[in-house]
Structures are given as structure tokens and as C-alpha cells.
């Protein structure tokens, strides 16, 4: 079994994070924006795991468990909010949903 070098894993995590950020910025659908946020969280989690394995410390995995729990909570609240928004506005388009006019 070959171990992945830390550089490659971090590169992957950075790539995932960028994809997530780009998704949040570019997607119009609020549901996909939530999805992109999840990707960003997982990118962060991956970086923690890689770092933990590199230094031989359990802290990285502990942090990942935290992130996982937090992501679960975030998704449940986020999804319920999205459901409410769809219920009220019959739309998930973020540009249609803005109510403030600056």
C-alpha cells in the first residue's frame, strides 16, 4: 500500500475547496450553494486528516469528527431552511430571493 504524499493530498484539498468556493459564488440555486459549502467543509476535513496522518497525531482525526458533526448539524438546519424558503417563495433562485434594495 502506497501512502499518498502530504503535498498531493493538500493539493487535492485545495482543489476541492476552490471547487466549493466557485460553486458558492456561481450557483444560482440555493440548494447547490449548500452542496458547495459541504464540499468546502470536506476539503477542510481532508486537509486535517492528511496533516494528522503526516505528523502521526490523533488530533487531525478528532478535528475531522468535529467537522463531520458540525456539517451534519449545518446540513439539517440548512435543508430545513431551504424547505421553508421553497415553501414560502416557490423558488430556490438566490437572485429572486433578495429582498433588500441597498
Amino acid at each position, binding site marked *: 500500500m502506497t501512502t499518498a504524499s502530504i503535498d498531493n493530498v493538500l493539493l487535492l484539498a485545495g482543489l476541492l475547496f476552490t471547487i466549493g468556493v466557485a460553486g458558492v459564488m456561481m450557483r444560482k440555486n440555493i440548494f447547490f450553494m449548500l452542496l458547495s459549502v459541504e464540499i468546502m467543509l470536506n476539503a477542510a476535513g481532508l486537509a486535517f486528516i492528511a496533516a494528522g496522518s503526516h505528523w502521526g497525531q490523533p488530533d487531525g482525526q478528532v478535528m475531522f469528527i468535529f467537522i463531520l458533526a458540525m456539517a451534519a448539524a449545518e446540513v439539517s438546519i440548512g435543508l430545513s431552511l431551504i424547505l421553508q424558503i421553497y415553501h414560502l417563495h416557490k423558488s430556490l433562485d*438566490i437572485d429572486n430571493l*433578495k429582498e433588500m434594495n441597498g
Partner: protein
Amino acid sequence: MQTMLWIIPALPLLGFLLLISYGSRLSRRQTAAIGVGSVLLSACAGLYAGGQLLLHPSLVYEVTLWTWIDIGDFHPAIALRMDALAAVFVFVITLIGALIHLYSAEFMEKDPDYSRFFACMNLFVFAMLVLVLADNLLLLYLGWEGVGLCSYLLIGFWYENPANGHAARKAFTMTRIGDTALAIGLFCIYYACKSLNIVDISTAAPLIFQQNPQEATLIAFLLLGGALGKSAQLPLQTWLPDAMAGPSPVSALIHAATMVTAGVYLIARMYVFFELAPAVQGLIAVIGAITLLVAGLSALTQYDIKRVLAYSTISQIGYMFLALGVGAWTAAIFHFMVHAFFKALLFLGAGAIIESVNHEHSMFRMGGLRKKLPIIFWTFMVGTASLAAIPLVTAGFYSKDQILWYAWGARHGQAWLWSMAWVGAFITAAYSARMVLLVFWGPLKTEVTSRPRWSITFPLIALAVCSTWIGFVDLPHNFGHFTPFSDFLHHTLPLTELRADPTTEWMFQILATVATVGGLLLAYSYYYIHNKRLRHLANQPLFRRLHRLWLAGWGFDKLYQTFISRPFLWVTKANKADGVDQLYSAMANITTSLNQRMAALQSGSLRWYIMGMVLGAIILFGLQLLL
């Protein structure tokens, strides 16, 4: 008695506190009993203490009640001190105060604010007693401000009339100018002497100011400023004639007998500073001499009987200032005492007359009251005779003659000061006679509607007796060297040094008599025998203009209006937008406009926010990498 000195001011204070707390629940009888009783008991205590001082002249009552303030080296105490000078003032304040309170009990009977009146009067007596009994200048200043406050409260006593409120504010503001000077003077004294105790600074002053007499001059000048305001001397005299808006007993107590003489007391008390500053002492004499002429001429033309008396008060205090200025300290205090008696009598008499003729103030609408109000007539005549200084029989003659003589003969006396005082005596006699002739002689013009009862007539008679007999406590030197009053005061005040030959004193007495008789005859001929000649005189343009000028008190009000009030109002109007405020409102305006611009960023568009966040993060990381 030594330690019981505090009881003299404490009794009126107690009366004030009772009246102000329970005034609305007390009946009129109880109110009067508290108001009059407290001052009467205080007068008894004052008389007893004064009597002890007379018997043991070297004695000085001193009592320290408690330390008032204690900061570093500065610890003024609530301490009272009664020496000969203070004793004379206590005697006059409490005795005349008690008589005036008794008079007020009947005079103010129908007033709805009976208890407020007595509360203020009691507070006034308390404040004045604190002023004269204070052992340090800070306590003196407390009393000084206290009488100012009471004066304001009592001038504006009938506050429903806006004119009275205006007069009260005017009195307060004008005296405030003097008070400020006095306060600065106290700071200077403390700075130089490191103490405010009167005895300490009086003994230390000659040493301290040996090197820098300018400092003593400055302090004396500031003290004089305070005295000018309170004693209504030129140029701060304009408040006193308007102060007649208050009830007559107030005019008698505050604006004739006691409060306005606080300035005389202050100068006599701090005489050391004035002896160190001869220039300022000369200025006192000059101010006094000018004031007595200016006010005397104004009194000649007034219609309102109370305004005549007000101007005459200013004029008589001018005499006291003249005496202080030439170094005749005891003569000034003697004239203060005599003047307090006869001026209180005249004001109370005037109040009784006004009340009897249905609140008519104008002398030209009185007349012929001689037969209708005999007691008032006779007592008023005694007071007027004293004011005009009728020789030998009246107290006013002895005190004023002393001042006239010292204006010539004392060390700082001058011929021109004497001649001004002499002309003043002539004018005094003239306006006194004019007042009496207009009020009591001639045809009856206003019906008498009410007659005074005993509590009005008794104080009048008592004061009339005093105004006659009090003069004999200090006879001129050529009348057999009977001078117990000035001997008594010499325990506190310095002797009057003479420059003229004492044997010539009789000439000045005869000249003073000539002035008095001349003035009386002048008024008699114009206002009684030749009424037509008066009208003829009044039609001449020069006299008409003079009359208008004097009636308006030499136009000082207008002068101050034009040169002080108007420019001040103009500045306030010009500065209505408030130049300084512009800076601060500009800051507020910039913030508001910035806010409006920035608010455009808060569009509600989530993707813009994220864009902003990412951009910010990139910039931060970039900076981190670069730096």
C-alpha cells in the same frame, strides 16, 4: 454667652425652616408669631451680647462651631466672631429687623403668601447676620450671596406681575457683577495670604504686601467692586430704584437699612487693605461723592414716593463711602446706624401711606394727608428731618455733619470732596422737603381708605424715637467730647486722623446748617408758596431736558442698554447658527452621507457578499505572502 453666640443667627434660621416646612399648615397668627418671634428673640440675644461688649470693651466673642471644608492647608470653619463693628451691625439688623417684621405682620395680612413672605424675611435676617458675624471671608461670602438671593426672592415677591420679576432679575444680575469681583478678590487674598480668616489676614497683610503694594491695590480694588454692587454705588446703582417693586417692608429692611450697607461693612471690615492701597481708598471717596450728587439730583425729580427714598438711599450710602474714602471709618458706621433707623422709618411710613391711599404711589396724587394720618405724619416728619439733617435735634445732623467735617478735615480729606458733600446736603434737604410738602400739605387729592393699626404704628413710633435719640451717642468734638460710639468702635477700627485744625469745626457745622436750611427753603418756595414759578421753570427747555434726564436716573439704564445689552444681544443673534457648532454638525453630516453611500453595498445579493468575502480573504493572504 461666649459660646452661645450662634443662637443669634440660628433663631431666624429656625424660623425660616419652620415656615418653609410647615408654612401651608400654619394659621396666619402662628406664622406671624414664628416669623416675628424668631427675629425678636434674636434681637434680645444680640442686645445682650452687645451690652456685654459695651461693658467689657476689650472682649471679643469668638465661637467655632465646626470645620466647614478641610482640604490641605485650606480649612475655613463655620466660626462666628463678634467685635465692636459686628456688634453695631447685629444691633441694627436684629432690632430694625424685628420692628419691620412686626410691621409686616399687619402690612402683609391680606397677602395669600403670608408664610412665604416671613420665611424669606427670616432667611434674609439669617444671611445678613452670617455676613456680619463671619470670622472668615468664605463664610462672609456665604452670607453675602444669601442676602443677594433673599433680595431676589423678595423683590419678585409678587411674581404674577412680569415687571416685578424683571426688577428682581435686574437686581440679581447687577449685584452679581460685584459679587464676581468679590469672589476673585477672595481668591487673590487666599493666594497671597494663604488664609481667609479675617483676623489673620488683617494682621498679616501689612507684612505680606510690603514688597508688592500693587497686589494690595488689586485686592482692594476687587473688594471695592463687590461693595459697589451690593451697596448700589456708581456705576452699579441702577438696580436699587427698580427694587422698589417689592413690598414696602422689604424695601425698608433690605434696600435701606441693612443689605445695601453690606458694602460699607465689607470695606470697614477689610480696612487694612484699603489703608495699604491709598489710590483705591481715594477712589472710594470719589465714587461716594459722585454717587451722592447723582442720586440726590435724581431724587429731586421722582414722582413715586418709594423711588425718591430709593435714590436717597443711594445718595446716603454715597456719604458713607465718602467717609470710608477719607479714612473716617467710625463716621461711616455712625451714619450707617443712623441712616438705617431713619430710612427704615421712612420706608415703613411710605408703605403705610401707600396702603392708606389705596395703593397710590405718585406723590403728586397724594397731598393733604397731614390731618388724616396724624401718627404717620409726625413719625414721617421725624424721619425726614433726620434725612434732611435738621441741626441739633435730629440724629441725621450729627452723623452727616461728622462726615462733612471729615471730608474736609480728615487726613485724606479734600476741599472739593467737602464741597460736593455740601451740595449733596443741600439737595438732600430740598428733596426731603419736596417729598413732605407734596404728600402732607396742599389739597387732599386721594381719599384715605384705611388707617393703620398698632402693629404698624408701634414700629413707626419706636423708629422715630430712635432716629432722634440715636444721634446723641456721638456728638461733635466741640460739643463736649461725648463720643462713646466712636470710642466703642475704636476697639476695631482705626482712629480718624485729622489734617485740619479741630477748632475750625464750628464753621463747617454752620455751613452744613446753611445747606440744610437753604435746601428746605428752596423746596418750600417752589413747592408751597410759588407753585406757578415751578411750572414756569418746568417749561424752560434746559430744565425740561434736565428733568427728563434726572427722572430716568441720568439715563444709566439706557446707557447700559445701548452699550452692553444691545451689543450682547446682537452678538447672540449673529451667532444664532453657532459658529463652533458648525464643526460638529459637519462631522455628523459627513457620517450621514458616508452611511448613505455604504448602504448601497448592502444589496441583499448573497453572491456579492461571498464575492466580497473571498476577495477580502485573497487580499489578506496576498498581503501575508508579500510582507
